[in-house]
């Protein structure tokens, strides 16, 4: 009787102290969340719920790295099963008659085994495979956690296997080994053979030891969690439920107060989900593994940004003097290295949003006047001339001059399609030829289209991503002046960056006109029979632009378009949502390349070169044309691969003469 009482008291004490400590450690975090900015993450909850279930039980993202996903599934499912064991083990102490039914006992034993296998694989992964993505993570924490879980599993087997022998003494009930609990059954028989089973002291000790290793360790685990990456056990599921749904490509939500800035200076300037993100991070490094800046050898790792912020917050909560977040906790070099390609967010199994935090921290740097001097010129150019080239506004439509048929001025007459051209396609002499080709394709298809001439300014996508919200707003207002006045049915653009801004960022000004990327629009035209391409019969690979693919989920249209042109598409290993950034986004195209070991665009071209008999690298973004043409040169692969724009291919397929000076022909 005394043994049971001690166990009961001990269990209650352990429970109280562990939960008490857990709450004590968690409360400050929740207080910070309360003080942070608001964000609505509870809209459309049924959809969120089903999405969450798919991610949690389907392990969709985790399984992208096979071994890692499988071993996580073993351990994760073990935790679900563990709940059964906790209930039964604790229940037994309080009511000895509680015994697991046969199938449940089988499940518990089987899963404990799977968890142990998972742990073995995890150790193998950490110690032998040593993926680079773990660089910078707390490896010790990882091993401690794995050891704790292993101990719990051993504890389960131990107390189960000694229970029938200890029960008569401890609980004054009789119990037998349950063959369904096959591992503990086998162990029980081992104890009998070893003569340990019928020694009261040994049986009691074995049971209590097993119980403490199991339940005691569970409580110890709970107390350990708040200072460990394994807090994700509690936070990952809610974090996935609370994932961002408002247009994914929208970086900054509408400001809630008039003077609100996007700059993140303190933790109060983040929203509460941002704070949650910091403690949800599992340090798995999947973001780091896909980050183009990290791959280029730059000082950025999205994982470290999160961890550095988390550590800074922990220090603050521990009474430490707050450090500046931008340029302090996270260095300016890290922040300016980001291309805002979004690969990190796409890879994160717990749906952490890295890019808005980086942009917010950049905004703080910018407010202090700290910005790369090259990009400062670009910001000034946008402000004064509305373009990144520092060219006069009046020269924006200069590329149209040599066209046979003049393009309509959408400011003066109604058009069906309003073409938003963008800076690069308007001003870059190398790309103007391409713009003229697009105009000819539209004419061929009989589209009634127009442009805004000098009335168009840069859309502001990059200004916003450089942290210059005010400039973005100024540019947006300039464009909206005409976008709202002009008469048209839909917007058309070749530029994914403009596409993203007009589609996702201008919503905060109440602008919601339909917009099509040229790959979508051209596909429509072919399907409507307005363009009839003849097969080109070439083998190509296609590069998904970040702002078309990842941020706007347009993956199929370009591929279908290629198919309609009789083009055989060979995918690069990294394609679709896992596409690898060209390195230009987020203002990077204008910044100094300091400490870059391999440019992302060069890395990408080398990836394309591994494909068998692929001679064309198809792009669907003016910046890509610029970046990859340079990369083909710098990797010296002019003889092996040509960068072509999808519009050039279409022009050829519909029999337009593609000028010598067009990029493809070089």
């Amino acid at each position, binding site marked *: 009787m005394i043994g049971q009482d001690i166990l009961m008291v001990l269990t209650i004490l352990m429970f109280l102290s562990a939960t008490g400590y857990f709450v004590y450690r968690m409360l400050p975090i929740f207080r910070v969340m309360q003080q942070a900015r608001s964000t609505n993450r509870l809209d459309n909850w049924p959809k969120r719920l089903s999405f969450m279930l798919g991610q949690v039980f389907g392990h969709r993202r985790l399984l992208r790295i096979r071994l890692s996903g499988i071993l996580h599934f073993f351990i994760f499912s073990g935790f679900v099963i563990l709940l059964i064991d906790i209930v039964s083990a604790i229940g037994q102490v309080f009511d000895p008659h509680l015994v697991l039914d046969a199938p449940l006992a089988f499940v518990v034993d089987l899963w404990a085994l799977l968890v142990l296998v998972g742990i073995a694989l995890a150790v193998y992964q950490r110690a032998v495979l040593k993926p680079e993505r773990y660089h910078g993570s707390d490896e010790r924490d990882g091993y401690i956690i794995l050891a704790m879980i292993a101990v719990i599993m051993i504890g389960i087997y131990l107390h189960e296997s000694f229970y029938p022998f200890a029960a008569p003494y401890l609980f004054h009930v009789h119990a037998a080994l349950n063959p369904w609990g096959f591992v503990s059954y086998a162990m029980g028989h081992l104890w009998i053979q070893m003569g340990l089973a019928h020694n009261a002291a040994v049986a009691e000790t074995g049971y209590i030891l097993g119980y403490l290793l199991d339940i005691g360790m569970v409580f110890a685990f709970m107390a350990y969690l708040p200072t460990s990456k394994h807090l994700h056990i509690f936070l990952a599921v809610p974090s996935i439920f609370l994932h961002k749904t408002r247009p994914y490509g929208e970086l900054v939500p509408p400001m809630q107060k008039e003077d609100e800035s996007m700059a993140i200076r303190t933790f109060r300037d983040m929203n509460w989900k941002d704070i949650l993100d910091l403690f949800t991070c599992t340090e798995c490094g999947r973001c780091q593994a896909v980050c183009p800046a990290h791959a280029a050898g730059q000082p950025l790792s999205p994982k470290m940004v999160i961890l550095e912020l988390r550590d800074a917050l922990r220090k603050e909560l521990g009474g430490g003097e707050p450090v500046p977040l931008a340029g302090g906790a996270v260095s300016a070099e890290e922040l300016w290295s980001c291309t805002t390609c979004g690969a990190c967010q796409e890879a994160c199994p717990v749906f952490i949003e890295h890019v808005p935090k980086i942009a917010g921290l950049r905004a703080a740097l910018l407010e202090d006047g700290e910005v790369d001097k090259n990009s400062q010129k670009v910001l000034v150019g946008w402000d004064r001339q509305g373009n990144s080239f520092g060219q006069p506004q*009046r020269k924006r439509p200069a590329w149209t001059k040599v066209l046979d048929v003049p393009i309509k001025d959408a400011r003066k007459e109604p058009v069906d399609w309003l073409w938003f051209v963008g800076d690069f396609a308007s001003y870059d002499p190398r790309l103007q030829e391409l713009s003229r080709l697009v105009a000819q394709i539209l004419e061929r298809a009989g589209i009634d289209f127009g442009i805004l001439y000098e009335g168009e300014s840069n859309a502001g996508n990059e200004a916003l991503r450089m942290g*210059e919200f*005010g400039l973005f707003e100024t540019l947006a207002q300039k464009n909206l002046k005409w976008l709202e006045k002009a008469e048209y049915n839909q917007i058309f653009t070749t530029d994914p960056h403009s596409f993203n801004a007009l589609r996702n960022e201008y919503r905060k000004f109440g602008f919601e006109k339909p917009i099509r990327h040229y790959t979508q629009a051209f596909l429509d035209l072919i399907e409507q029979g307005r363009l009839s391409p003849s097969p080109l019969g070439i083998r190509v690979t296609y590069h998904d632009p970040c702002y078309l693919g990842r941020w706007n989920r347009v993956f199929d249209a370009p591929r279908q378009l290629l198919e309609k042109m009789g083009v055989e598409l060979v995918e690069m290993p990294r394609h679709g949502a896992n596409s690898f950034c060209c390195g230009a986004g987020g203002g990077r195209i204008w910044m100094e390349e300091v400490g870059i070991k391999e440019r992302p665009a060069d890395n990408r071209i080398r990836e394309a070169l591994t494909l068998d008999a692929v001679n064309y690298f198809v792009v669907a973004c003016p910046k890509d044309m610029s970046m990859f043409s340079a990369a083909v040169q710098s990797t010296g692969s002019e003889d092996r691969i040509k960068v072509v724009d999808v519009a050039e291919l279409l022009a050829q397929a519909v029999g337009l003469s593609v000028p010598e000076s067009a990029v493809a022909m070089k």
Partner: protein
Amino acid sequence: MRIAVLMKSVPDLVEDIALDEDSGQVLFDEMTYVPSEWDDQALEEALLIKEESGAEVTAVTVDTGDSDNILFTALAKGADHAVKLVGDYDPSLTNRRRAQIFADYLRDQAFDLVLSGVQAIDDIDGQVPGLVAGIMGWPHASVVTEVHSKDKGVVLRQEYAGGLVAEIEASTPLVIGIQAARKPPRYASIAKVRQVAKTQQIEEVEAESPDVPTLAVRRFYKPVASGHAEMIDGDVEEVASRIIEILQERNLLRR
């Protein structure tokens, strides 16, 4: 140390200069204006002095209709005060008159140091700091690239042809024409400028229009393309080939 930075805007040279070729007049009202880049350099140097050894920086403009943005930007970058000298002035205001207006204001203020851009592109006598100093009878130095506060005065660097530099010790009060600051001018984000515009005040000071020596400009004209280059047309490859030909003709190639 109290520093005044004299600032102005000039026509944006990225755009064409609005010139009525018949009358030979520059159409000042038809151009877009940007802050004079040398003045930006002067402000930056003033802010660097402030950061290095403490100073109170006041940005001063003559209101020709577009001063507010310049002044709020200066405040956003870290200037302590902004002063706008108001009167019936428009963008065609000559620098000589501007200098006189500045000087009339500065005379009554206890500034130790007056910085401004070494020159401005928009006038026949764009060297505002020298004019201001001459009017006030203060010592001055132009084409300066570095100023440090030292003891009761400053140590500055003046640049000469050939990259020669003199380090000069000068006592205050002093007027300095800045050619370039030690560091490229900092950025003022639009949000910051807007925020400053809401929270900080520009001090307005009435300034009378003084009489100054004037020049009668007969006409402005575009430089005659007497020596305009012979343009080589074509795409990059054609141009490159033609250039090589020219160099060969003139025996400028090694082989």
